[in-house]
């Protein structure tokens, strides 16, 4: 009798043990439903600063007026209050959506976007940043909080493909080190953006391409440019700082095409250039073709303002090297990112900001 009881007690015990193990395994699985971030060498790494990800206007004021100690203390006092979204927030959400679609089609691939928070902030501010990331459930698992040290070395360590910051000095440094980078600006109005498709708009000269044509316009005028471009139509332009980022986007797009998802591709790219299709457009398209790159829509404005067209496109980010285009886009609600590269930085519209070393030319440069 006791033997039967013993054995049934043992059976009961082992059943309980098995149940417990299964429950624990299920719970452990629940904890790790987050997908593992890809290895940096496989991923398209986008580094965002804290001020592009979140809007910290008030806190910035505290930093400027009261110093770093008060600034950090302020964040620590408000640690559980999530920060408001910043200029790069919609871009990050759109990247996350692309990743979900990629994971559906290629569950074992590491060719994904990897979003890294790259901030100069002190690690104690980092706690509030992590809490805010948790609040919005953003897919950001990697970060560098350098407590004031330069982020450039870390950008390289993460094999960063694109760096977004509100600090133009850091952005310039990154570009000089060969890393695609842009200074982000918060638009003046909020407009509705697609939540199923990442839309990226690029200016051409001094962004995707080098500034060689910009130099001609600034120094010799628009007509000289048109003649020059027709003459050199078949010679590819040299590459600009954002060319490699377009390339990375193209590579991910082709993964969707390979699965017959061209019409439903969650990435769309735009070229928005002041060039005119008739006179200087061909060289641009031929250059892209020679690089093996595609752009979904090429829009030649022939000098017309970019703002209204961008409002129609509604990109999650628009890259341009000239601040007056950025201002125009911002005013109408487009999220703009300035690429501080090339000769355009020395001019405000068509007026020279600083004297060049070359002798002055007779013709006054026309606005491009």
């Amino acid at each position, binding site marked *: 009798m006791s033997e039967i009881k013993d054995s049934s007690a043992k059976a009961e015990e082992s059943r309980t043990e098995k149940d417990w193990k299964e429950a624990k395994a299920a719970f452990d699985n629940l904890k790790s439903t*987050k997908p*593992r*971030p890809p*290895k*940096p060498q496989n991923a398209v790494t986008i580094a965002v600063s804290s001020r592009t990800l979140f809007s910290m206007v008030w806190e910035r004021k505290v930093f400027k007026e009261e*110093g*770093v*100690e008060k600034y*950090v203390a302020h964040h620590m006092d408000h640690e559980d209050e999530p920060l408001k979204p910043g200029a790069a927030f919609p871009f990050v959400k759109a990247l996350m959506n692309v990743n979900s679609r990629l994971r559906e089609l290629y569950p074992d691939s590491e060719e994904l976007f990897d979003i890294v928070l790259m901030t100069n902030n*002190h*690690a*104690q501010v*980092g*706690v509030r940043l*992590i*809490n805010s*990331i*948790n609040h919005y459930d953003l897919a*950001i*698992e*990697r*970060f*560098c*909080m*350098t*407590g004031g*040290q330069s982020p450039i*070395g*870390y950008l*390289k*360590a*993460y094999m960063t493909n694109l760096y977004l910051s509100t600090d133009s000095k850091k952005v310039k440094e990154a570009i000089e080190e060969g890393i695609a980078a842009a200074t982000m600006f918060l638009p003046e109005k909020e407009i509705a953006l697609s939540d199923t498709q990442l839309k990226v708009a690029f200016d051409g000269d001094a962004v995707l391409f080098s500034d060689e044509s910009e130099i001609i316009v600034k120094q010799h005028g628009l007509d000289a440019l048109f003649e020059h471009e027709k003459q050199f139509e078949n010679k590819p332009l040299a590459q600009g700082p954002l060319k490699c980022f377009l390339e990375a986007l193209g590579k991910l797009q082709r993964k969707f095409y390979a699965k017959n998802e061209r019409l439903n591709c969650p990435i769309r790219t735009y070229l928005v250039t002041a060039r005119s299709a008739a006179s200087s457009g061909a060289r641009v398209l031929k250059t892209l073709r020679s690089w093996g790159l595609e752009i979904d829509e090429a829009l030649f404005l022939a000098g017309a303002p970019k703002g209204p067209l961008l409002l129609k496109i509604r990109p999650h980010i628009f890259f341009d090297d000239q601040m007056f285009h950025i201002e125009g886009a911002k005013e109408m609600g487009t999220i703009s990112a300035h690429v501080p590269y090339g000769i355009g930085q020395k001019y405000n519209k068509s007026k020279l900001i600083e004297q060049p070393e070359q002798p002055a030319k007779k013709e006054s440069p026309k606005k491009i």
Partner: protein
Amino acid sequence: MCWFSFSLQKDADHAVVIAVTSRAVFGSGADDDEVYGEGLAFPLLQALQRVNEHLLMNNPAELLLFDIVLLTTDSQQQQQSPRIISSTRHYGLEVGRFCFSSEEDFVENLLKNNVQLFLSTDRNEASQATQRGVLSALLDHQTASCPSEQLKVLFFGDAVIQPDTGPTPPSRQAARSFSAQLGEMQRRFTMSDSPLSIGLVTWRGGRDSCADALHTLRSRGVRVDEAYCLAEAPWGPILSVFRPHFLLSDGFGGLEG
């Protein structure tokens, strides 16, 4: 056997005793000159000294200072003991104690001298010390030799947040009290003028693991200045940018692999 440098004696109740091997500070090259050449840990020693200088500048009566013990286990170097002492004088290194031991009983020496952190370039030595409950860190070319003005300490967060299953090993106790003392030193300075920078790196897990480590260190009175959450990205490139003087792993320092 230990020789004391009387003028540099620190208050035993408050000082943070750090032992470094002379092999790490002076290297093993046999120089014909009177003094040894600078070794891997030379910049580290200078950084420790700078922290002391800043502490004393703020408060000339400060007792919470680093007390440096130079340990020689290398028998060749032991024969050159006068040269070791004169070399430290030559470079202006403030060494409170010179200890000469064999490989067999150097750990006894560490314990007798109340050493709170042992720094060596020899993995075996560091491992032996840890097993006897002395917090140790392994020095190599990625650490120690950083020429930074600030003393840069890096905590390996994965070890910091390990659950307390069973009795706490003595080396972990040692790590906790050492980090609490570092935290105490940090509080003597403001963020913008600190000669000491405390970093945290986490490898396993994601942002939540790093957040846990930040909170844990905070609860021990350590204010982390820089944090790096790797989420399994390779740490070599990150470490070569951060360049800590030493890495603490809540027990045995030195990342495996």
